[in-house]
C-alpha cells in the first residue's frame, strides 16, 4: 500500500449570522468535501458555527514576518487617519 499523506486544510467558521468567517485552525483531509466533514466534526461540535470554509493550506500566501517593519510601520506616523486627530467641540454634536 502506498503511503500518501493527506494535504493540510485551513478551516474558517462563521460563528453567527452576519459575521465574517474566522480562522479557527487546520486539519488533514484527502479532499475538500472530506475537509468540510472533518471540520464539522472537529470545530463545530458545540454549535460554534453556521457556515464552514476550507482552503488548502498550500494556497495561502502569507506576508513574511521579516517584512513587518516596511509593511506596517508607515501607518504609525499617519495619525490623521483616525477621527480623534481632529478636535471637534462637544457642542457641535457627535460626528
Amino acid at each position, binding site marked *: 500500500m502506498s503511503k500518501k499523506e493527506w494535504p493540510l486544510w485551513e478551516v474558517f467558521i462563521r460563528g453567527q*449570522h*452576519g459575521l*465574517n468567517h474566522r480562522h479557527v485552525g487546520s486539519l488533514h483531509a484527502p479532499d475538500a468535501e472530506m475537509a468540510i466533514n472533518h471540520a464539522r466534526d472537529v470545530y463545530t461540535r458545540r454549535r460554534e458555527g453556521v*457556515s464552514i470554509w476550507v482552503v488548502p493550506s498550500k494556497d495561502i500566501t502569507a506576508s513574511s514576518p521579516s517584512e513587518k517593519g516596511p509593511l506596517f510601520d508607515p501607518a504609525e506616523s*499617519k495619525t*490623521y*487617519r*483616525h*477621527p480623534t*486627530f*481632529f*478636535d*471637534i*467641540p462637544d*457642542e*457641535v*454634536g457627535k*460626528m
Partner: protein
Amino acid sequence: MYAQLVKSEGLKSREDMSPEERDFQDRVDNGEKIEPKDWMPEGYRKTLIRQIGQHAHSEIVGQLPEGNWITRAPTLERKAILLAKVQDEAGHGLYLYSAAETLGVSRDELLEKLHSGKMKYSSIFNYPTLNWADIGAVGWLVDGAAIMNQVPLQRTSFGPYSRAMIRICKEESFHQRQGYAIMMKMAAGTPEQKDMAQDALNRFWFPSLMMFGPSDKDSVHSAQSMAWKIKMNTNDELRQKFVNETVPQADYLGLKVPDDKLAWNEDKQGYDFSEPDWSEFFEVIKGNGPCNRERLNARVKAWDDGAWFREGLNAYADKAADRRKAAAVAAE
C-alpha cells in the same frame, strides 16, 4: 444615498409569493443575514447589484472632486490628510465592488456599465469643487449625508454588503471630521476666508439634500427594497435627520444655511426646510449637471490610460509563474 433611484420591483404581497420567497422573507424579517450561497429572489439579487454597484461607483467617482485639490492643499499636513481621505474612498469602492461580486457580477462588468453610462453614481459628484473651502464642505456635508445613510445600512439583510458597510462606517468619521475642521479654520479666519466658507455652504447645501433621493411621495422604488431590508429608512426620514444634525453645526461655525424657510418646529422636534429643486436633480441624474461629462471622461481616461500598466502586471505575473515552474522542474 450614494445610491439614488435604484430601480426595484413593485412590492410583492405574501399571497403572491412562492414558498421559497415566503421562507426568504421570513428570514429577512427575523433579522437573519442572507449570504451569497443562499437562495434569493432574482429581484433581490438584481436590485442589490444595482444598488451596491451604484454605491461603489460613487466611492470612486467621489475621488475626482477631491483629488482636484490634492496638489493645491494649503499646507503639507492638509495635503497628507486629503490624500489619506481620497485613498480611503478607493478602498471603500473596493469593499463594495467585492460585495457586489459575490452576487455573480464581475467588477470589470460593473466598470464597463459605469463607463458606458448605463449605471449611475451619486448626483453630488457632478458639482465642481471651486475653492479650498469646498473640500471642507464636501467632508462635512457630503460625507455627513453619506454617514446618515450608511449607518443604518450596517444592518442590511445581505451579509457581504452589511460587513462592507461596517468597515466603511468605521473609517467615515475621519472624513467628516477633517471636513468640519477645515470649515472651522476657514470660518474663524479672515473675512475673505469666512466668505469662502459661506459660499461653499451656499453651493453644497441643496445638492447635499438631494443625495437622499426624491421625496417619499415620488419615490417609486422604496417599498420592496424596504421589505427586503436593502433600504432601511425612507429618503425623507434621512433628509430630516441630516438637517436636524447639520443646522447646529452651521450655527457653531457662524455660517448661515441658505434657506429662508429654515425654522425650528417645536411640534415635530425638527427643522422645517425647503425642498431642493427636484428638476435640477433629475437633470443632473440625466447627465446634464455641471460636471457630468468631465467626471465620466476622467474615469474612462484613467481606465484607458491604465491599460498598459494592468497588462504589464499580468505579463510579470505570468513570467514569475513560468520561473517558479522552471525552478520546480530543475529541483526534481
